[in-house]
């Protein structure tokens, strides 16, 4: 609690134990091509794209594989030179089924790839840059994985005034932020110039947490010139990197003499997205790979890896020295990551990382006990929901009250409530179930009306 000073923008959140930072965390290693790459045509939050190649086609790295017919879709490019083995229908969590292109990578591909035309943000017009971003098939890399082009278009319509670069690590143990700051500094600055121009905004804020403060400061100090973003270094607190919470935090206070701004005047792009925009536009590249963190005690060489799209998760983890028999593998980080049932699924655009949890790495969660009404979860919820009350209602299957009186739909499953609960109540899991039940209950009358 803060006794003096400004009221914090949100009162909840948790302080996770500082994870050890190793030298290796600022490095990025290149992952080799898996022999076979799997490329679903819906890689991100949005509509599927349409294949423009057929089974048997020879493709070269960076060649268009699927085009975007829809505002929310993004084009997909071949991550490797090789040939299309087949195109199959696979089950998909959201859309029922989705087409998947199976690509056999040419053995011995160097992964070098000379891109097309470079786009210099100082010479191209805003619209040319925007078009280039669309053609490169870029999606947000901060975990949200929506079309970056679309996000920019919406932001232009909203006439935003402030560009926020989110340099806050979204998950404990992930280290993409230091890696981007250390290895892709020039790309970050180029991406920043580009996004500024597209949006037509002068003001930009780079937000990082204390451990990355020095690296961010170095980057800005070494910048060749031009208008630099204001730097905000925040004390670590999970989940302040969630875009909305971050904007709330930044909007309230004057930054380096700049006046405060309203939360809806800002648009947020993750540091990784900004860096990739800069890298791809200056190199004329398309989004065919991305930097992810591979973490966990189950790996001999955890760290950041640049992985070609379509690489099976298992292949990537093997390359990072996965020890035999991991206890579980998470798509995403320890707070929000989902445990995977199998490792043959591919790494898609916008993935942030994977964790191989070794057996015995985390103590087994004790059986949950009754709620002791301690209110820890209430204090921890960054959205100031009422997890304990939601928990009571969930046990009685009162989905409607959960949504209508206690705003279940607002919960973004950050996990803070379950993290602090001394009774080990699986609150997030209960909320997920409740949301699914509620959606089903909502959908039913519509189906009945239709039939």
């Amino acid at each position: 609690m803060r006794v003096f000073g400004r009221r914090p923008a949100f009162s909840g959140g948790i302080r996770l134990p500082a994870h050890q930072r190793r030298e290796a965390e600022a490095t990025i290693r290149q992952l080799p091509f898996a022999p076979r790459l799997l490329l679903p045509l819906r890689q991100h939050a949005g509509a599927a794209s349409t294949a423009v190649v057929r089974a048997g086609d020879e493709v070269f790295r960076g060649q268009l594989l699927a085009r975007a017919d829809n505002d929310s879709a993004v084009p997909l490019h071949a991550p490797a030179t090789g040939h299309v083995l087949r195109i199959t229908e696979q089950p998909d969590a959201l859309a029922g089924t989705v087409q998947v292109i199976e690509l056999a990578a040419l053995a011995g591909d160097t992964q070098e790839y000379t891109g097309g035309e470079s786009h210099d943000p100082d010479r191209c017009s805003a619209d040319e840059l925007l078009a280039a971003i669309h053609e490169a098939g870029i999606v947000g890399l901060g975990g949200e994985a929506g079309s970056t082009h679309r996000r920019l278009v919406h932001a232009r319509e909203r006439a935003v005034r402030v560009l926020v670069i989110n340099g806050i690590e979204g998950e404990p143990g992930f280290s993409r932020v230091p890696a981007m700051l250390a290895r892709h500094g020039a790309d970050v600055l180029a991406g920043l110039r580009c996004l500024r121009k597209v949006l037509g905004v002068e003001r930009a804020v780079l937000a990082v947490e204390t451990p990355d403060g020095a690296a961010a400061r170095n980057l800005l100090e070494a910048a060749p010139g031009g208008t630099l973003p204001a730097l905000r270094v925040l004390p670590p607190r999970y989940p302040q990197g969630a875009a909305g919470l971050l904007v709330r935090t930044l909007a309230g206070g004057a930054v380096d003499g700049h006046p405060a701004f309203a939360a809806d005047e800002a648009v947020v792009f993750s540091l990784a997205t900004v860096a990739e925009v800069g890298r791809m536009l200056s190199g004329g590249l398309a989004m065919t790979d991305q930097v992810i963190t591979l973490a966990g005690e189950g790996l001999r060489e955890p760290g950041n890896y640049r992985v070609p799209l379509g690489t099976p998760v298992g292949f990537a983890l093997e390359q990072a020295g996965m020890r035999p028999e991991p206890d579980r593998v998470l798509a995403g980080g320890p707070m929000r990551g989902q445990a995977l049932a199998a490792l043959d699924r591919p790494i898609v655009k916008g993935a942030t990382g994977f964790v191989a949890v070794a057996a015995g790495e985390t103590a087994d969660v004790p059986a949950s006990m009754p709620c002791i009404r301690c209110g820890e979860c209430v204090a921890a919820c960054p959205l100031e929901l009422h997890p304990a009350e939601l928990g009571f209602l969930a046990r009685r299957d009162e989905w409607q009250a959960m949504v209508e009186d206690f705003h279940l739909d607002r919960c973004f499953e950050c996990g803070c409530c379950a993290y602090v609960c001394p009774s080990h109540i699986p609150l997030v899991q209960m909320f997920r179930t409740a949301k699914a039940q509620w959606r089903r209950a909502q959908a039913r009358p519509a189906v009945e009306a239709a039939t």
Partner: protein
Amino acid sequence: MMPASRRLRLVAAPHLHGGRAVPRLMLHSVIALLPVTVFAVVVFGLAALATIVVAILACLLAERAFAPPSALGDGSAMLTGLLLGLSLPPALPLWMVALGGFLAIGVGKHLFGGLGAPVFHPVLVGRVFLQAAFPAAMAQAWVAPLTGARATELPATSLALPFMSPAAPYDGLSGATPLTAVKAGDTGAPLADLWLGTVAGSVGETSALLLLLGGIYLVAMRVIDWRIPVALLATVAVLGAALHGLDAERHPAMLTTLGSGGLMLGAWFLASDPSVSPMTRRGAWIYGLAIGALVVVIRQYSGQAEGVMYALLLGSALTPHIDRWTRPQPLPEGAER
């Protein structure tokens, strides 16, 4: 390609936990009470020891009877027993202690739905029952501190048989507690004795200083919400000082008010129990304040010498309402993601 034989566990997020756990919270509470427990046995002798042990055993027995065996491991029944033992007069007949302990868990806890569900603190349920059923015994079972034979003899009252006519008071040693003394127009015990605990009183309520240290330990270990005892004690202090200022004849000095009776035990160990206190931080302030005010009002304006117990019960009754008044309001739409 990966061998498909790996068995991966499908565990729901989050995969980290902060390490807070109910049994640990209970353990910390017991640790916080150890100094005052040892001190009580030194000051009041075998009578105190027997009271505590019997209370704990009765609570464990009731827990075993009403809950699945695994529940014994969470330590909550043990803590209830210890707290009950500490809040009773030392020479209370042991069968009454046992009955109180059994009812504390059986009625106070499990009739309300078990761990976390009680509306009133089970310890208070046990104690109120004893107070109501055996007012005479509860009023006579005080023991003067530091008497010579305390380590070797149990007072006759302790061993009284159930429902027999009360045994003769323990060698005439039964001492008036400081609060009854004040009520009777006396100046009360010397302040140092009061805070150190070398006065007559309930087994573990007498040493305000050791209870305060225990409470600070609980706050340091983040077991309890510091807002509750702080608000409670601050309210008592301010109102107590004001009353003393108005009429020093009738009202004891502020430090006497703070150091006497079950106030410290109630503020740090009973009021702060998560199950009976509000869930929000704003609620904690209101709750502490309300109990503090009730303590002063009941102590000063009613015939009851000891207001803490009733103030705590009334405060717990307020908890659901306070929770409703202070229900958190979600951040505006779009504050996430």
